[in-house]
């Protein structure tokens, strides 16, 4: 009828169904949303905290009955407001937005840090039963912040889950990228998927490049429209909200002047990544 299907991404409001505490700083919120329940791993949604803010969040899981979950880390005003919300309170949803990870079935390596584990867990659930090999490296500052470790261990054989903490309170005491160096020297992989802090992504990217393994990394940038119009989320020629958030190694090579180095501020100026 209309040339635009953007209305398909109209904001709808829905009550929070459940709130689960995953760690001292992370909670999982579940609600019903038909559109987003059809999302693919890597896609994100815009969550409106009425009267406060609207923020991008990766989709953590979906159910056939329309339930959708997101894992949210408390870092500032919006996430704090969301953390204070309870079941039955109303939030707004737009999405799903962006592209998704390709779903390969060979020998797969996943490297996740912080809430970046969320889209990878979603992906792992989809591909685990079909892959030849699945190794999952996850990292956090400390044991209590290691997210979804039990779920990941249930999905992969236990020996294939490598946990790292910066304080050594669980698994190996190091950054998530550390165990990779040795692993990539010894084992062969067909694909690396990664999501987390951008410095980590860059490290993983460098290693994958060195070992000539294809890679897909999910990036974060400031989001406003989420439909590829406003330009807030750009990296190089790409709009993270439309052309991403998942980028291939080829694409990351194109934007190496910004990847891991710079992002755009609220006013559109390029500033160093913190």
């Amino acid at each position: 009828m209309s040339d635009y299907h953007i209305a398909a991404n109209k904001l709808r409001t829905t009550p929070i169904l459940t709130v689960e505490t995953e760690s001292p700083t992370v909670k999982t919120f579940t609600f019903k949303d038909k559109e987003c329940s059809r999302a693919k791993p890597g896609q994100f949604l815009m969550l409106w905290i009425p009267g406060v803010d609207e923020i991008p969040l990766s989709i953590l899981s979906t159910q056939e009955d329309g339930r959708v979950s997101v894992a949210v880390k408390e870092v500032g005003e919006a996430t704090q407001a969301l953390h204070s919300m309870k079941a039955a309170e109303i939030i707004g949803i737009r999405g799903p937005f962006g592209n998704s990870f390709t779903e390969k079935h060979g020998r797969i390596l996943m490297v996740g840090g912080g809430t970046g584990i969320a889209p990878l867990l979603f992906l792992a659930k989809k591909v685990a039963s079909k892959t030849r090999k699945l190794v999952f490296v996850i990292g956090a500052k400390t044991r209590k912040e290691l997210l979804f470790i039990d779920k990941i261990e249930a999905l992969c054989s236990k020996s294939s889950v490598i946990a790292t903490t910066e304080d050594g309170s669980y698994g190996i005491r190091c950054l998530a990228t550390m165990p990779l160096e040795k692993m990539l020297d010894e084992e062969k992989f067909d694909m690396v998927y990664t999501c987390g802090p951008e410095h980590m992504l860059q490290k993983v990217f460098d290693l994958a490049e060195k070992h000539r393994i294809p890679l897909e990394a999910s990036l974060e940038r400031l989001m406003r429209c989420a439909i590829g119009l406003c330009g807030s989320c750009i990296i190089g020629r790409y709009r993270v909200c439309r052309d991403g958030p998942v980028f291939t190694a080829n694409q990351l090579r194109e934007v190496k002047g910004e990847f891991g180095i710079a992002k755009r501020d609220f006013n559109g100026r390029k500033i160093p990544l913190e």
Partner: protein
Amino acid sequence: MNRLGVNLAGLNLSNPTMLASGILGYSVETLESIVEGGAGAVVTKSIGLEPRDGYANPTVVQVSCGLINAIGLPNPGIEEFTSEIRAAKTALNVPLIVSVYGFSEEEYATVSKKAADAGADAVELNVSCPHVKETGSEIGQSLEILSKVVRKVKEVMEKPVFVKLSHNVTNLTDIAEVAAKSGADALTVINTVKAMAIDAETAMPILSNKRGGLSGPAIKPIAIRSVYDIYERVKTPIIGCGGIANWRDAVEFLLAGASAIQIGTAIALRGPNVFSAITRGMETYLKRKGVKSVKEIVGLSHRR
């Protein structure tokens, strides 16, 4: 022979499609992707004297047949942006128009001059911002203030000055005439239309700024009417804008009196290639109608 070439206030466009201001217009790279998509010219995000962060989210909300935005003119300020202009001027092979906003004539003039000096081929004055913040009324709504702003900008620079008009006025054609008489080299018609969205469940305005501007197909008939009315009043070239999504829309604007057209919201779904898709469609139309140049159809719907 290029059927689609137009000369817009001295600028040569290989085709009459232009990127509308505020759409992906921050960086050289995205402007390049728009040019690769087929745009005949590009307009940057509106730039002011000082950097601005814009409003908090939600800044965009979708409605039936369009969207409402209140992004709040985020921009790095002209000092920072001149390097982007310089780089863009080198990288792009189409005219580069810098959109300028200000809160006084002097601001408009200063920013315009800096943009032109850095290499902008023209400036487009976005006159939809409040001149006295307390009253909230807009520069483009007052014949006197608008006239002063345009004259001031014309004084300080030689390059073409476009003025982008808002539909939210009683006397659009008077305003167009004043802009033209004050020296505007082209009129961009129209900016977004005052609008708002409220959520029934939370009983709250959705945008953090509450009020916003409507764009997309919903405003096309309003924009066409604005172009048609202004074409009957002034001789200054008109750039049509508002809800253009396909070649037929574009042709309708030309028939109404636009010499060129700008595209914004349609990029959300069709991506940067919307420009070449529209250009191809226009070319087929012109061939089918046996028209040698796109210029011949400008204002054709006014014939009796």
